[in-house]
């Protein structure tokens, strides 16, 4: 055909600039930020400090990896902070040898203490069940994710408070604590290793598997996905189950790192986690985003907070800055989406 409309061959160039920016803007911003902090504060660029940053963000990071699945389907999960608290308490109680022994003081030597893996399994099981229940409510009862998980936020917090009966559970056996405080090869903090391992796994799932394709498809256009023979309800439910898995895993690592679990743990985590995902370039409208972006977004927030602390900026101002950055990230996403539409 001689009558190729010019737009066919020309638009890719334009799309690619936007695509490139959308993909690498967080990384560029991170590099600029790190350079700035390094120039201003020499202590920032020491390996010790950088590992510290990574260790601090690893729990947010685990949650953000799960949240990426949810947001890719244009969903949201506000319940994760509460779910982390509840799952953490359950893990702690299991580690202490059961509910009746949960307030025993000491590292659990006196009580029948179980190993870290049982604690981890318990936390993950709680997360999976919590996620499934919410996913079920969203897909079968047709309640919007925002409302379901707002309900979950309240319900899981209530469950945590009930379970803790007012006091924290602390003092776990050493193998449990090592999962949160230990280092591999004397350098790498264990939580960082867990975070990055699961990030890589999640990346592989989203990028290379049939399931990953379905997540993008359902988020990009649920009706088209259904008419292409995809099971939209199953996929949608599954992302909340995955989120639940990461909430459980995160709860376990958090309890281990603090050597304690309490009912108010994880308060406000949802905001930081959603911010990490969105700053990393995942679209709140669904269908666009990567785990790579989420990892960068998570580190970006960690670096920002760490740098601000080193610069003696008050915690209140830090919150203001994070808030502004979230809004700007979403504004950028909206802009990129409008370009995609017209493109």
């Amino acid at each position: 055909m001689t009558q190729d409309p010019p737009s066919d061959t020309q638009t890719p160039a334009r799309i690619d600039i936007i695509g490139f920016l959308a993909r690498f803007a967080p990384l560029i911003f991170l590099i600029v930020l790190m350079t700035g902090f390094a120039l201003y504060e020499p202590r920032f660029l020491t390996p010790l400090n950088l590992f510290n940053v990574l260790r601090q963000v690893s729990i947010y990071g685990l949650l953000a990896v799960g949240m990426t699945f949810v947001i890719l389907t244009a969903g949201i999960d506000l319940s994760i902070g509460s779910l982390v608290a509840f799952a953490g308490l359950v893990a702690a109680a299991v580690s202490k040898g059961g509910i009746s022994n949960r307030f025993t003081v000491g590292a659990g030597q006196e009580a029948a203490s179980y190993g870290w893996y049982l604690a981890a399994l318990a936390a993950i099981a709680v997360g999976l069940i919590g996620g499934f229940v919410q996913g079920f409510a969203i897909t079968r009862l047709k309640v919007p994710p925002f409302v379901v998980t707002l309900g979950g936020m309240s319900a899981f917090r209530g469950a945590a408070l009930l379970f803790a009966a007012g006091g924290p559970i602390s003092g776990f056996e050493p193998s449990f604590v090592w999962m949160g405080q230990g280092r591999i090869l004397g350098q790498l903090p264990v939580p960082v290793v867990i975070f990055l391992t699961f990030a890589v796994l999640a990346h592989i799932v989203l990028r290379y598997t049939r399931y990953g394709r379905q997540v993008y498809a359902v988020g990009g256009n649920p009706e088209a996905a259904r008419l292409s023979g995809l099971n939209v309800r199953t996929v949608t439910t599954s992302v909340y189950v995955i989120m639940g898995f990461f909430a459980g895993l995160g709860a376990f690592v958090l309890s281990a790192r603090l050597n304690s679990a309490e009912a108010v743990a994880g308060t406000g985590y949802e905001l930081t986690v959603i911010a990490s995902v969105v700053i990393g370039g995942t679209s709140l409208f669904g269908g666009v985003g990567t785990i790579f972006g989420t990892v960068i977004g998570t580190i970006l927030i960690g670096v920002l907070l760490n740098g601000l602390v080193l610069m003696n900026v008050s915690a209140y101002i830090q919150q203001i800055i994070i808030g502004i950055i979230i809004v700007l990230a979403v504004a950028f996403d909206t802009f990129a989406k409008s370009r995609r539409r017209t493109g």
Partner: protein
Amino acid sequence: MTEPLLRMSLIGKRFPGVQALDNAGLEVLPGEIHALLGENGAGKSTLIKILSGAQQPDSGTIEFAGQNVTMTSPHDAQRRGIVTIYQEFTLAPNMTIAENVFIGREPGPGVFVDWRKMAAETKKITARLGLQLRPMSIVRELRVAEQQMVEIARALSMKSQLIVMDEPTSALSSTEVEKLFRIVRDLKAQGLSIIFVTHRLEEVMQICDRYTVLRDGRLIGSGAVADATIQGIIRLIVGREVNALFARRERASIGGVVLRVEGLTRLGNAQDQNATVLANVGLEVHRGEILGIAGLVGAGRTEMARAVFGADPFDSGRVVIDGREVRIRSPQDAIRHGIGLVPEDRKQQALFLALAVRTNLSMASHKQLTRWGLFIDEVAERAMVEEYRKKLNIRMASPEQIIAGLSGGNQQKVTLARWLALGPKVLIVDEPTRGIDIGAKVEVHNLLFELARSGIAVIAISSELPEVLAISDRIVTMREGRVTGEIMSEEANEEILMSMMTLNTKAA
């Protein structure tokens, strides 16, 4: 000769990487209906956006009502008397007709709205259009044609001199089109000028006084419709002869029945329990046959297709494939039994606009592309995309290109390829050429012929009668959820089909 109301000359507009307009122009006389024609991508939309103030030209001049003007915003253009009605309406669906007509210009004292006056004014304007709409009806509950009338009423309420209509008939049934034309002629009689953007040349011959053709962003020609022929205008639009256009095809050899639908019935919807969506619909399609489904908008054609495909539930009826009754309760069931559906609204129902061409094309074929039950075999996937790029002549920069950047015709080919990759027994295509340009239409038609020749049973739904006549072996007509007739396409013509489509079913 009278001074033109509007004269746009030497308009240029460049977007990053593409020269959308290059010496484009348009002259509209007072009190005329002017057709703006061109293939998709010819620059019609950009020219209209410039005229309506939504975009600024890089070069060129616009004269309106004898003055040189610069339209800084849509609001500015409206103030001068130029109102554009886009294909996708800009109404607030949850507000009343009156609120929509007067949105942003509500009458009343101070910050308050004088509802009584607003309703009365709205009534006056709709009466001028010969409509009987209640000003306090909620827009969402109106039919598409009625919503369009609300847009026109809004344009009139702004005391506009020039109304631009972007493909106003694409979503209307033929009776609604007639009604729209009556109103447009009325407006013309009242001294307004109308710019009509359309792909349907019969409509141009029917209603327009003059036409302007754009190609590749340039002004190619303009003139009086009375002096032109459809073939002549097509030559201007595509820059070549299209002899194959809507030519009837050679009949393929037709085999046994593949799909039979019996007594398909779907009772009322949520809004109206009494309405019957589908009433006892029965039809069959043979191997290698193209069965055309004709009917007005709302006749139940799309609903029938969606029910057979499992996209919507139905209350009773049987679907029989290769002589065996099958249970279809979801698209997954339909796909498993070898049925594919190319839905009517490409962007809303078929495409993943943010994803690559490759991902879009393979979306229904994940099963056959999966390795170790988990991973997508991207090598096989790329080979699949390449195969269909060649077969269907899909024009794209690369398989990784985001599909939003393809023209409508190429997007439609990708959607077709998605189903072809599954090797279906039955392919249902709903308005397969809606909103795609003439060259691509011919390609899609040829593709459907080839599919039929390869033994697929094709069901083609189309609102364009020349298209139904050209591509079908046999045509079934529907009205109000019922089948009203069946005819071999050699024995049919537009008049016969139209009478079958509008036939009173009780008399039949």
